[in-house]
């Protein structure tokens, strides 16, 4: 049985279905309300196109953690029926019905109870196998639009007939669907009629998996042998964690460890049980399934990566710790356990040798660095760690700026760290070399001429007299040599940010070279060449 809340990201954001709104990731629609759909807004559509079709569209950002947290009450309500609820992704979960149906008197009775027990507007689909059940839930949604109860039950044994008229897009493998359409196959029924061996030979494991789905079978033949125990990883937390962050940090380490063990066996995990226990013996146990089965057609089985595992643990703990007072744990978490429930051979892509990224770069070092950065962020705060990126500007502190390390993917190639990232020239830049110390707050100083008067610059940018003495912090230095000014007149169109200044390089008798700036009649040291 699949229990599905349509357009969950929007429901979690509290948007009513009759208001046109859509959630975007990377400028593409990932979910939209029924009202938006009525205006022809579709998934994967660009934001501009979506807004053109529906000008009143409300644009929302995706917040995966909120989605997961809000879904927790739904799962808790379902746990009254069965202990084995599998969360495919926030908004959709599934559980086997054989036991519960018998207890509650049949699939129909069980489905009705589920609909009554959950506060959210759920669609319930029942079929043999999760794939068909998911589509049954979609059919239930169509039924609900007509005013029927939001339940659709596919009778046992008739799954193949139910799936046959569905379009190939249901497989969510656009490349495969495209090829099949050009072969003249348009429905799952057409595809299912092909001989399995030929499909495997032509389309590889991913195609064979899709073929099994189209025939109404599970994606993979059932494996009855339980995964070996040495794949279970667990950790004791001391002191107990009553916040999500410290527990999530431990979970990240566990996820890495599990992933490493799976890797060593050449396996991937497609279903994972996450168990958390508190000091008072309360227990949160959730089954997470890998949702995106071989999305790009050629990649084969990818399974849950270390990052995805860690995310799921964090979602679960977030939902549990921040639940309503009645369901919240009464003590800190002392035990975390990751239990890979379904492990299959990794027949998919091979990312190269360990520690070798594409282009021969050492991604192992990058991963280690990212982990150390996460640890430092935990100690000193998220803003404490930053990385440089090029930006346009005329002053030494403008040409490179710092961005928080959390905002960038350090393991990927970042074009903004190369000097050619800034294409446009910035006339008025200071010549190389650049100062090694750039004062975040300019230090006020006095630049004096031979008679002890402050040096000024006239309208043609010539100094009133050669600068001879520099007074810093009450100490006076003789200026041995100087050059300038390099004038800057920036943002004259903006009265508030308009800045007109003249910059000089000066070397004083102690050998220090400084960049001094005259702005609005005041001198300051902007940088020191030390």
């Amino acid at each position, binding site marked *: 049985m699949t229990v599905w809340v349509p357009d969950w990201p929007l429901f979690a954001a509290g948007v009513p279905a009759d208001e046109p709104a859509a959630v975007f990731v990377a400028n593409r629609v990932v979910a939209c309300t029924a009202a938006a759909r009525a205006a022809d807004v579709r998934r994967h559509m660009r934001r501009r196109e979506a807004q053109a079709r529906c000008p009143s569209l409300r644009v929302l950002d995706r917040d995966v953690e909120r989605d997961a947290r809000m879904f927790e009450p739904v799962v808790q309500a379902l746990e009254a029926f069965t202990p084995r609820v599998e969360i495919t992704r926030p908004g959709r979960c599934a559980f086997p019905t054989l036991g519960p149906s018998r207890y509650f008197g049949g699939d129909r009775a069980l489905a009705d109870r589920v609909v009554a027990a959950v506060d959210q507007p759920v669609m319930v689909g029942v079929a043999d196998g999760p794939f068909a059940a998911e589509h049954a839930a979609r059919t239930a949604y169509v039924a609900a639009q007509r005013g029927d109860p939001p339940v659709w039950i596919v009778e046992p044994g008739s799954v193949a007939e139910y799936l046959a008229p569905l379009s190939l897009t249901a497989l969510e493998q656009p490349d495969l669907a495209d090829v099949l359409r050009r072969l003249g196959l348009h429905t799952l029924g057409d595809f299912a009629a092909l001989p399995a061996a030929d499909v495997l030979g032509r389309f590889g494991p991913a195609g064979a998996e899709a073929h099994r789905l189209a025939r109404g079978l599970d994606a993979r033949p059932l494996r009855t042998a339980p995964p070996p125990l040495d794949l279970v990883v667990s950790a004791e937390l001391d002191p107990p964690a009553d916040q999500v962050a410290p527990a999530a940090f431990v979970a990240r380490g566990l996820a890495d460890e599990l992933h490493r063990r799976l890797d060593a066996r050449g396996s991937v995990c497609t279903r994972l049980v996450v168990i958390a226990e508190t000091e008072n013996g309360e227990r949160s146990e959730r089954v997470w399934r890998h949702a995106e089965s071989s999305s790009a057609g050629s990649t084969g089985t990818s399974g849950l990566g270390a990052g995805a595992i860690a995310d799921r643990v964090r979602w679960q703990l977030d939902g549990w710790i921040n639940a309503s007072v009645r369901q919240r744990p009464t003590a800190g978490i002392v035990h975390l356990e990751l239990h890979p429930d379904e492990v299959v051979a990794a027949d998919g892509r091979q990312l190269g040798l360990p520690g070798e990224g594409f282009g021969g*770069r*050492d991604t192992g*070092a*990058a991963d*280690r*660095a990212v*982990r*150390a*950065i996460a*640890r*430092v962020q935990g*100690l*000193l*705060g998220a*803003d*404490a*760690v*930053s*990385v*440089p*990126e090029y930006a346009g500007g005329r002053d*030494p*502190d403008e*040409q*490179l700026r*710092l961005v928080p*390390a959390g905002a960038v993917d*350090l393991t990927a*190639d*970042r074009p903004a*760290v*190369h*000097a050619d990232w800034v294409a446009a020239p910035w006339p008025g830049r*200071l*010549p*190389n*070399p*650049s*100062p*090694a*110390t*750039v*004062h*975040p707050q300019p230090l006020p100083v006095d630049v004096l001429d031979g008679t002890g008067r402050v040096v000024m610059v006239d309208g043609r940018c010539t*100094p009133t007299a*050669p600068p001879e003495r520099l007074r810093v912090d009450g100490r006076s230095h003789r200026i041995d*040599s*100087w*050059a*300038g000014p390099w004038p800057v007149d920036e943002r004259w169109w903006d009265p508030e940010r308009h800045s007109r200044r003249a910059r000089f*390089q000066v*070397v004083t008798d102690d*050998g*220090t*070279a400084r960049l001094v700036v005259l702005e609005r009649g005041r001198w300051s040291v902007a*940088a020191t*060449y*030390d």
Partner: protein
Amino acid sequence: MGRAEVAAALVEQIQPIALAREQRLPVLPAFASLIPGGGLRRGSTLATDGPAATSLALAAAAAASQDGAWVAAVGFPSLGLLAAAELGIALERFVLVASPDTEIGPDNEETAWAAAVAALVDAFEVVLVQATHRVKARDGRRLAARTRERGAVLVQVGSSGWSEGADVTLEVTDARWEGLADGYGHLRSRRVTVVGGGRREASRPRRAELWLPSIDGWVESVVADPVPLHA
């Protein structure tokens, strides 16, 4: 040949390759006479001091950074990033960490600052540290031990705050900028005199003159005195 012997033979074949490269991080040729062994020994500490301490530390890390090492800098609120890039730090593997305002750590035993530096030493090959406060002797020893254990290189920029000396020390005793005159020209190059010291293999005093940077923007040894134009 038995299985064990084959394995032993293989180990022998593999080992020397790993050793030469693994034990020292590369430095620019200009540093060859200043740093014993011609490279920064993994697990060691380096201290730079004097008027150009920051530039010198960046230049010392430049070759390793270009070679693929990750470099972290802790406690440089006013570091000139452009200068770092010009001296040869690969910005895609460069991370800046702000020093915490407070010194109270998670368990009062170790300050948050020391814990952060220790975490960085675990993963980064070169960690530049400017102490913004006095480093407790115990923290200093602990960090040195951690560095030794993880095979990183800890660079102390500016001697203030550190109670213990580093394995290798480099001090700029004299720095002179060139290229500037009375009202014209611009800063072009800087000639520095660096004096080396340290412990064990670095205890022999060393001295070199460097362009930091040279007129072309590199870090080079001063080969010969320039011929004066007006003799």
